[in-house]
């Protein structure tokens, strides 16, 4: 892909309880030039989020113990300007679940749609910085 992408240095935290999906998504993002770290549940994700900065968090909604909406709220409490994208198997999530995220996408969409959305959100923030 395009490794000269100015966003290629961006760091992304990917959270999902599905290990295969998580690994493939990490590969996809890394291929696009992002630095990717993964977590398989909300607690691990929050631990990572506390210790180092991320340009974007890609959150699954349906996870055991702590769902995506709860993780998003906790992250916004730590960093109110955290950029979070909810990626869910559900077609439409309740509105309150999307209060603390920048965007919501459905799993199964074309990968380019996902990559475009991520790229847009990161660059929007970068220009805002």
């Amino acid at each position: 892909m395009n490794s000269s992408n100015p966003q290629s240095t961006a760091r992304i935290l990917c959270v999902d309880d599905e290990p295969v999906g998580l690994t493939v998504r990490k590969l996809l993002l890394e291929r696009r030039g992002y630095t990717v770290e993964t977590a398989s549940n909300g607690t691990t994700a929050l631990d990572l989020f506390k210790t180092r900065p991320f340009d974007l968090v890609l959150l699954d909604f349906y996870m055991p113990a702590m769902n995506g909406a709860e993780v998003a709220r906790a992250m916004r409490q730590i960093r109110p300007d955290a950029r979070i994208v909810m990626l869910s198997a559900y077609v439409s999530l309740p509105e309150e679940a999307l209060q603390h995220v920048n965007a919501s996408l459905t799993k199964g969409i074309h990968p380019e749609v996902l990559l475009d959305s991520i790229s847009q959100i990161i660059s929007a923030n970068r220009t805002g910085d």
Partner: protein
Amino acid sequence: MEPRTFSRILRTSLLIPTLVIMVMAAIVGWELQQLRTALTWVDRADRVISEMRLTLRSMVDEETGLRGYLLTRRDEFLQPYNNAIPRVETQLASLSDLTADNSPQQQRLQQIRSSYDQWMMYSQRMLSDQSALTASSFESNMEGKKLMDQIRNQFEETIRAEYQLRDERVRKSADLDKLFLGSLIALTVVLGSSLAFFTRRQLLGLSHAYDQMLADSRRKTVQVEEQREWVSTTLRSIGDAVIATDSEGKVSLMNAVACQLTGWTEEEARGKDLQDVFKIVNQETREAVENPVSKVRRMNKVVGLANHTVLISKNGTEYNIDDSGSPIRNSDGELVGIVLVFRDITREYQMQRTLRTTEKLALAGRLSATIAHEIHNPLDTVSNVLYLIRADSQGETLKHVDLAMQELQRVSQVTRSMLSLYRESKTPVPVSVKEVLESVLSLFDRKISGNEVRIAKSLPSSLTVEGFPAELRQVFSNLIGNALDAVGQHGALSLIASKTAAKGDLPAGVSVVIADNGTGISQDNLSKLFLPFFTTKGEQGTGIGLWVSKGIVDKHGGTIAVDSSTEADYHGTSFTVWLPEKFTGERHSPKVQVEMEKGKQLETA
């Protein structure tokens, strides 16, 4: 009055006059007998008198004969004398018999007898004395004359006495006659009046009893009339429809609700076959449901109707009904008729159906949410993997990967469309029908202008319905998209929205007709149109558009119908979507929740 009492009165009324007449007859008979006896005695006196005269004449004959002989001494003069002697004896004996009951007369007859005997001795003496001198002597003649005069006087006296006796007897019989007549009159008057009195009393009693009977029957008639009135009022007041028939199944009675539901008046329906008045069909199959009369006759007990029974009224209006038929039996247990009780459950039926649909949707929603998770996760992974492979591919492999990705996107599109239907609903909001349709049309702008499709619109801006705008947009997007696919190049499309007034149990609403002049849909396909995964577009169609649309419309409490023609000179398809003005299908509203519980009870009942 009892019939027994009545016949008793009749009997005494006949018996007593008969008895009275018999008594009268006996008395009269006895009296006649008495009178006859009295008259016999008078008769006997008459005979005695006549016999005495005859005896006297016989004696005078003897005297005359004797005198003639004595003067002439010729035997022919003595003939009467000789002839008279035995006659006198016989007559005297007869007189003695006739007066045997009367001693004074017997005494007198005794004296006559002795005087006669003396005269007879005198006559013998005269006959035996041959001297004419003696015979014609004055002394001798005087002696005979004296004796005969004595006899004559004695007879005179006896006859007078007998006359006296006769007079007495005549008087006595006349008295008896008078007495009898008087007593008879008196008896007749007394018995007659007492009979009249008795008969009058009997008749009065009878007439009183008759009056009472009349009054009784009049009172009973009034009671029966009142009872009939009461029954009829009660039937009329029943909220359910009631039809009664005779044993032949001819309508004999209908109450007001039954008239209203069947569309027949009681006068029109009376005597008609029940099937003509009470037309019922199965809602699903449209086949006639078994006539309740024959069903009751067959089962010989109270029967209920099958589910989904629809009553078709005279004017064609249809009602979902719930009913039962019961046999009417007389006191001997014979079937003399059937009574049918039914009620209009159209509203409940529609409510139940809506609830069932809503329930199914809710269940499907929950199921699909679970399935979505299980499908979208691997789908997402496979998509990503293919995308990674694609980056390293070229030539044939790249084509294959593209094809795989394209197919995967179709799967993703289908699941997303299906799942979006069951997203958690918020409260319905007023939706402008014009705005929804215009926004959908704008989506197809490029296709419309590219294919040069003519669009005719009649979309009044005042029309609104309560619902979910996104879902309604999906419905019209499906229908308009289909229509545009059907007409192809240079086709025509018309969109007409209009208000519909409340009719029967249907509330007011808005009807939207989307018609195209495409090739039309075959009858075979029409019936499968709303089934899931049915498509006529081959690879291009997902086969769930209309199925989803119907789900949404149902959820809104509306209806969707299709009409199509494949005729060469008149072809095309029109879809009619009707939506109620007020949202009725929302399952989260407390009102519906209560009814849902009710629906469940009904369903399990």
